[in-house]
């Protein structure tokens, strides 16, 4: 059974008097422990799909099944409980946190809200989470604005895994990181996936990164699926016009365009 099954998802927006289909009849599924990447040009609907899957916005049409249940039918308490298993990491963690909160506080909240650990147990859990993402325990007392961007992204991942999710939505989560930190965070995500069979919906413009970490990829264009398949096969030999254009335009370090 699929972990997440999305069928015929559609979302329209009005802007400047016009209606645009940000997501237009999109269907896909993700299996447990799998990484599905979403790539495609700017404005093709990637972030809108992420928000729909997380139920941060409601679709105009379509169905989302998560862990076998009709996710769109879940209300209040049931939805809150289920959210623990469906987490997110976005591009700018600073925007997602209160910058004055301490790292410990940021990690304590999900453990408390979802009743995952008792008050006395939580400091130990927080230390374990920090260790999991390769951060020193003394970072716990620092404010979010007092740590570097790469460290902040690790805290965001620690927070996301705190509630033992089965799926994490990552929207450009590594785009703003430098190459060495990016590599470390990708390794960390893959380790977590191997250990706990976490699935990822991985949104990125970086086709090299998508090729290196994803099992499958969907290429979107104007809200619709242009092409999908094995990540390496698609990126090495795209068939759709948009796939060819995206790959052809990717910068190469040594100017060796294939």
């Amino acid at each position, binding site marked *: 059974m699929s972990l997440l099954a999305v069928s015929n998802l559609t979302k329209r927006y009005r*802007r*400047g008097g016009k209606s645009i289909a940000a997501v237009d009849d999109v269907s896909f599924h993700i299996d447990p422990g799998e990484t599905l990447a979403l790539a495609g040009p700017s*404005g093709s609907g990637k972030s809108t799909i992420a928000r729909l899957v997380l139920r941060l916005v409601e679709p105009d049409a379509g169905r989302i099944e998560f862990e076998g249940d009709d996710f769109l039918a879940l209300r209040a308490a049931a939805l809150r409980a289920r959210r623990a298993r469906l987490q997110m990491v976005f591009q700018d963690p600073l925007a997602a946190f209160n910058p004055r909160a301490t790292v410990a506080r940021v990690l304590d909240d999900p453990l408390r809200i979802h009743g995952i650990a008792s008050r006395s147990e939580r400091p130990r859990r927080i230390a374990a989470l920090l260790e999991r993402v390769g951060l020193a325990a003394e970072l716990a007392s620092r404010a979010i604005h007092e740590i570097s961007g790469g460290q902040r992204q690790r805290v965001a991942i620690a927070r996301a895994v705190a509630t033992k999710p089965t799926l994490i939505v990552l929207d450009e989560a590594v785009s703003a990181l*430098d190459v060495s930190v990016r590599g470390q965070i990708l390794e960390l995500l893959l380790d977590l996936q191997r250990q706990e069979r976490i699935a990822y919906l991985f949104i990125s413009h*970086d086709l*090299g990164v998508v*090729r290196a970490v994803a*099992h499958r990829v969907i290429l979107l264009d104007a809200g619709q699926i242009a092409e999908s398949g094995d990540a390496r096969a698609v990126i090495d030999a795209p068939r759709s016009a948009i796939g060819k*254009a995206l790959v052809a*335009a990717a910068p190469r370090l040594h100017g060796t365009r294939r």
Partner: protein
Amino acid sequence: MTALTSIRDLTVTYRRDGTAVAALKNIGLDVVTGERLAVIGESGSGKSTLALAIAGLLPAASRIDGRIEWPGLGRAPLGGRDIGFVFQDPSASLDPVMPIGKQIAEVARTHLGLTWPQAYAKAKNLLERVRLPDPDSALLAFPHQLSGGQKQRVAIAAAIAAGPKLLIADEATSALDTIVQAEIVALIRRLVAEDGMTLLFISHDIALAAELAERIAVFRHGQLVELGATARIVDAPAQPYTRALLDAHIGLDAEPLLNRSGLAT
């Protein structure tokens, strides 16, 4: 080749909880008029601090030692007019409650002395130049109605609206797809070639920096470790740190990180 700006012995120190953090140490660097210079280096190495120092935008609590001179300008630069700045976080450059057409038009009106109708026409033209689809409706849109990459393009349009001598782009293309990225690169090349603009391009994407820049400066721990022609830096880096940065790049031919056998799908 005159230096547009000449940086000598620049040291920038931030104060944090009573302690001083040196973000840049004794930097000496010329940005040559009409060149495309890229700055690369790990997170926290001082790239944004350098950009802010050149633009005169460092926070009041920072301490600046050394000199930043403007021989290519013959006077001190006027912010917004002489220097266009695209910030690392696109939402930092945009006002959330003002339609984006008005935001761009305002820059053109203030610095170029245009009337509102002229400034709006200019804004529309700029949105076309950064390849924003449907510029007419985009002029009326608010930032939250745009995707990440669309916002980034609006920020670039606003930064070039006044025809600056120097464009500083701090991680300005990280949210763009490769096609738009290539178009922005072409646009920046045209602005440099035709309008005599100079570019300071900060990016974590080393391949993109190499494609766009004629020279690359490599920063680490607040110091300039290496500076040279792009081909020399990429093909024959003198410093092990530069080599490590290049090796960490995940290109289209990189070995997959994914251990397929370890995952059941």
